[in-house]
């Protein structure tokens, strides 16, 4: 069940240039939220901007949740202006979460840039039950890591940076390929679950890297322009080959879909 909740900002700070992290007290949303879900955030007053903005639910600690975003336009800019004590109206939790696969034996989480927050949430929820899950993050450089430098979680993430910047230089599919090869040798891929979130480039690369059906499960979280985020407007369609129609809605059928079923849109 989703809620319309006036959440209260408990902390809002810039963690990297242009990247912000906000913690919100939102008991109703937190109580039902699952990794992979998102909230639809009312930004601004009156109807400027007109639409809400979809943001993945990052970490959830008790009745507080974290949102992490990059400023790309007016909506995300306005969110950066909120300060402690401000109310921010959330619609959520929304969408189908990642599948928490209790029978999987290996778990690899692969994020591209701002795709990290939902995977951090997933990692934390895995940690409650299992020790081992690898979280890989690909970024351009240090400034693009959507975690604060002082965040203890940063140590649990294997960062790959195109520019190096003190991290392994390269792209995130490099360590992903190594991980999968290693895994294939000891234990096989059949029991592995892969979870990904990032730009279309990453999605395509992963589709190329991993033949369909070799893994136990491969899920990816997608983005699309959204209107209602509730299955009302039919606006957030993406091409996904797993049903009787060619289109699926990111807001209700997703945002999490089987990796190999999704098609990049023509205009991306």
């Amino acid at each position, binding site marked *: 069940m989703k809620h319309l909740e006036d959440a209260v900002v408990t902390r809002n700070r810039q963690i990297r240039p242009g990247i912000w992290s906000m913690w919100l007290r939102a008991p109703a949303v937190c109580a039902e939220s699952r990794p992979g879900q998102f909230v639809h955030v009312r930004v601004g007053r009156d*109807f400027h*901007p007109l639409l809400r903005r979809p943001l993945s639910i990052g970490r959830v600690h008790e009745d507080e949740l974290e949102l992490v975003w990059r400023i790309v336009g007016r909506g995300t800019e306005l969110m950066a202006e909120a300060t402690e004590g401000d109310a921010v109206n959330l619609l959520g939790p929304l969408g189908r979460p990642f599948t928490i696969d209790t029978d999987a034996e290996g778990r690899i989480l692969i994020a591209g840039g701002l795709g990290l927050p939902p995977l951090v949430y997933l990692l934390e929820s895995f940690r409650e039950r299992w020790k081992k899950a690898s979280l890989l993050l690909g970024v351009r450089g240090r400034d693009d890591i959507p975690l604060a430098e002082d965040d203890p979680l940063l140590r649990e993430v294997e960062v790959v940076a195109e520019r190096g910047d003190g991290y392994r230089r390269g792209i995130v599919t490099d360590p992903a390929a190594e991980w999968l090869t290693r895994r294939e040798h000891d234990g096989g891929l059949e029991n592995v679950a892969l979870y990904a979130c990032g730009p279309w480039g990453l999605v395509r690369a992963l589709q190329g890297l991993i033949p369909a059906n070799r893994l136990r499960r491969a899920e990816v979280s997608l983005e699309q*322009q959204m209107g209602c985020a509730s299955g009302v407007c039919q606006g957030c369609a993406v091409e996904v080959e797993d049903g009787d129609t060619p*289109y699926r809605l990111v807001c209700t059928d997703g945002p999490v879909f089987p990796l190999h079923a999704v098609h990049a849109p023509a205009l991306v």
Partner: protein
Amino acid sequence: MSDPAQPDLSVRVGSLALHNPLFAASGCYGYGLEYADVADRDELGGFVTKSLSLEPWKGNAPPRLAEVSPGLLNSIGLANMGVESFAREVAPQVTGGRAKLIVSVACNVMEEYEQVIVRLEEVPGIDGYELNISCPNVEEGGMAFSRNPAVTEELVARVRKRTRRWISAKLTPNVASIVEGAQAAEAGGADALSLINTIVGMAVDWKTRRPRLATITGGYSGPPIKPVALAKVWEGYNAVNIPIVGIGGIANWKDVVEFLIAGASAVQIGTALYADPALPGKIAADLRRFMEVEGVASLSELTGSLDTGHGVTVGVPA
């Protein structure tokens, strides 16, 4: 629940009696269930379903939405579940409340409108139909129907023969004058007109040089279209004797009052619902306050009450 001590928001739109003048617009409220968790459907006077066709439609290629501050372009292409699923699975869950259920119908050819209506006639609890003959996002039918007055009249007349339920014809603003279409719908036997559907618009991404909608052009909605919608409601009000449901950019109670003054008997809220699904309840409360403060006994006295005073219609240049 209406408090008897509070102003009564009820209005009539021809034979349709509403406990308040606020409909949710087609395409902006799904089939009536999607927002159930977060907003009470009965705070609406009525709601219009997503337009239904005979068979399910998959809609247009993505991207289908582009925000053009502070409005919205869409090219959904009438993606819908088809009349059968609605009749069987959804209708039983959304009938019988205080909010009237108006089913929107959109097809490619006239015969299908009749077929859909015939199927819906079997479903109890439907309060009326809105004939969407004005969608800018489909290649056949759609907007073309309501651009042709003869087609409009025939289509309405055919449907009229199939049902005694309330019928409203939803017209496109993408015409030189709405008068002929409005009169054609009236002549065909419509109980009301729904004005307006979206305006054809387009958005371009200057960086990629690509259209922001896969279909290149789409339908423009939201607050920026309000002035256009008000002009069409006024034009329609002066052209026909059947009531008008005003639609376009409504986002607060003042907008509602303005549409009533310009000639609407009720209104529909569309795009603004995406920002706030609970908006109708808030607007209803605001309308009660308005009636109290301004001493308005009944909202229907506002309909068409535009005081043109010494105002002249467009003047002849001297």
